[in-house]
């Protein structure tokens, strides 16, 4: 019995003192690749931060963020939570048939209402009298395909669509739900795959009276792609590859980044090696971008109010328009950006994912 007591005390001492030493002496990282965020730095130590308690709260954050083998411990937690305690999700992230997603629930009627009001204001203030044709398309998130089948909570998508339709009768709704399946999305990321949505682009364009049917060459990034949910889920999963589509039209397109006032490419190869390779498509989150197609056989223009899903589908519509303007009102005030856009005779497409519509407080 004495041996057991010695072993118990020793085990405790080894774990506590061992990890303590690693906490103190192991070099620290600034950035967590798996979580795609900067880690907390050691807080400022002063009399003021001590008395106010800011040093202590800062240190707690620092100690958590810089714990040795942090990702391994997060994997252990996820495994215990899901496999031992039988939880159906880990921090709202769940896996079904190899696809990872985050629970989007419940349907936020106020958010839908807010989005509808913003769309209507844009229509009333900038589109009325401009002979613009206005369309709306909702992109289902992965929960639409996974939640019911796997027994997870999910929003009522029919209700979401009918709610937004009833509040925006100035827009023509283009239903793309039947064209999509879970295989059209990355397994570890929120987004759809560009190579799987060519038909979606063609369908939406056709609904707007444009023909964007064309051939593309498939190109693949060498770097393995771990999507945004990979780090959050914390259990090991296989990497995927990002594919991007090119053809002569896209190669000739002139892309202008209005936010940073510079020309960019349709596919940003610097971003391909960055923290989020999905930003290869039109350089990621930029509030105002134009794509001009010098080879266009039409002078028709398209304006897309969009979220990050729009980055990969917009280039696939270039064939049918002389100019596409992409506006992301999550990063710029609506009134400021709308004054920069010429809506005269344009097709205007509001293209949003269900996740963004259900969290429209991000709109400015």
């Amino acid at each position, binding site marked *: 019995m004495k041996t057991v007591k010695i072993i118990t005390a020793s085990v*405790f001492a080894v774990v506590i*003192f061992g990890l*303590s030493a690693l906490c103190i002496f192991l070099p620290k990282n600034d950035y967590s690749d798996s979580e795609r965020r900067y880690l907390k730095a050691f807080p400022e130590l002063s009399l003021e931060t001590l008395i106010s308690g800011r040093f202590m709260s800062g240190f707690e954050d620092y100690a958590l963020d810089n714990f040795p083998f942090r990702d391994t*411990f*997060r994997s252990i937690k*996820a495994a215990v939570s899901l496999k031992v305690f*039988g939880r*159906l999700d880990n*921090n709202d992230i769940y896996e079904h048939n190899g696809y990872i997603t985050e629970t989007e629930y419940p349907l936020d009627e106020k958010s839908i209402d807010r989005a509808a009001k913003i769309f209507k204001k844009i229509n009333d203030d900038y589109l009325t009298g401009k002979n613009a044709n206005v369309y709306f398309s909702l992109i289902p998130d992965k929960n639409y395909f996974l939640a019911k089948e796997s027994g997870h909570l999910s929003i009522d998508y029919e209700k979401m669509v009918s709610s937004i339709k009833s509040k925006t009768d100035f827009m023509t709704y283009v239903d793309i739900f039947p064209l999509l399946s879970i295989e059209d999305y990355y397994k570890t990321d929120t987004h759809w795959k560009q190579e799987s949505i060519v038909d979606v682009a063609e369908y939406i364009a056709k609904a707007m009276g444009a023909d964007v049917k064309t051939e593309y060459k498939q190109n693949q990034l060498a770097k393995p792609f771990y999507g945004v949910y990979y780090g959050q889920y*914390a259990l090991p999963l296989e990497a995927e590859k990002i594919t991007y589509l090119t053809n002569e039209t896209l190669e000739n397109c002139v892309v202008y980044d209005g936010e940073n006032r510079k020309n960019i490419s349709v596919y940003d190869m610097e971003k391909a090696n960055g923290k989020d390779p999905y930003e290869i498509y039109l350089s990621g989150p930029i509030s105002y971008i134009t794509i001009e197609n010098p080879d266009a056989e039409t002078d028709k223009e398209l304006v897309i109010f969009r979220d990050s899903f729009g980055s990969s589908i917009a280039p696939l519509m270039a064939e049918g328009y002389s100019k596409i303007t992409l506006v992301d009102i999550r990063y710029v005030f609506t009134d400021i950006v709308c004054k920069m856009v010429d809506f005269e005779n344009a097709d205007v497409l509001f293209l949003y994912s269900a996740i963004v519509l259900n969290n429209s407080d991000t709109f400015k």
Partner: protein
Amino acid sequence: MLFSSITFLYYFLPCVLILYFIAPRKLKNSVLFAVSLVFYAWGEPVYVLLMAVSIAMGYICGLAVERFRGKTLSKVFLAISVAISLGFLGYFKYADFFIENFNAATGLSVKLLNIALPIGISFYTFQLISYSIDVYRGEKAQKNPINLAAYVTMFPQLIAGPIVRYADIARMLTERKHTLDAFSSGVTRFVFGLGKKILIANTLGELCDVFKASDDKSVLFYWLYAVAYALHVYFDFSGYSDMAIGLGRMFGFDFMENFNYPFISSNAAEFWRRWHISLGSWFRDYVYIPMGGNKVSKPRWFFNILTVWFLTGFWHGAAWTFIVWGLFFAALLTLEKLCLNKILKKSKLVSHIYVIIAVLVSFVIFNAASLGEAGEYIGAMFGAGKVPAVSQEFFYYFKSYALTLAIAIVGATPLVKQAVLKIKENKTGNLVVSIAQPIAVAALLVVMTAYLVDGSFNPFLYFRF
């Protein structure tokens, strides 16, 4: 500082263990006092001064009570000590409650003080009061201010109990022994307490939060919440007590048990003999018995019960929900003494169902934001308010938390303890348990560290009391 935090486990505790065990015997209490101040100041940098003033006052009054023992002045200094302690508690914990109710009753609008509640004030105030009363009743006053300060501020039990009484610990302050046996059992108790807190209490706390935020409530979801919350409080608080007792043993102290499987009780009176034992016995010894206890006329007896349970409720928080929670138990205890016990004795099953339902309802009141919310929740549990019987969210969360709930329910009974004792009866079983113990300690430490690294939901409930 939270026990269940990376800062405590991997920065504070290793430093404390080194400092404490390398310090010579006569300096150990000084080390405990110093590190306890750091522990407290980590969460309450300013209120550490309030605690220091309380201790100084308790020390001086204790000496004076002893100096004038048997004379009126002794009683005067006892009264001063208790009044100042209660004055601090009243000002920092209850002032705004009194002002709010004064405003509501008179229609005036006296400005609220908006004082932040000093962590653990309810616990260390009661310890100081117990010290003064114990000295008045004959216990020797502590001559060494460091020893008294070490007793009041001792970090294992400083902010959430158990409420350690001076009489129980006076000798240990100077004569305690440090043994491998105590250290090892302290480690095991601490780690299992940490497990109760992190793996069970925090998880069930998440379920309670999910329920509160839900727009898809149903009768069964209300019941799920009631069960989850009662178990959450139990595992949170008893886990903390286990950690306190375990840490105490590591430093040579033997704190009193604070919980004894309360959910297996047969009536409310037994529940309170098994739940938060240190608080219940404090009120019994320092309030109920001095008021005459049950050795008085029946009306006076019931008045004593009412007073003690009003105070017990009010001790938990400055809100009517806590007072009603205490009075709810006063009503149950009175009913039991009048007639209910005769019925409950006839069937163990009925008595258990009665206790469980009573406790679940009581904790719904306890955790309600207002009496209105408490009424709404309890009504919904019993089908009032046109709430549907089941909902989509109920099914999902029941399924997701089923195993945690099952483990919690079994863990709230002595079944596991009895099973381990049974296994240890034969030689092989004893060997298996002996081998499993250090493995369990190591595995739990790793898993709990993983939960801490990943998690953000971690507040201790009893900090607010």
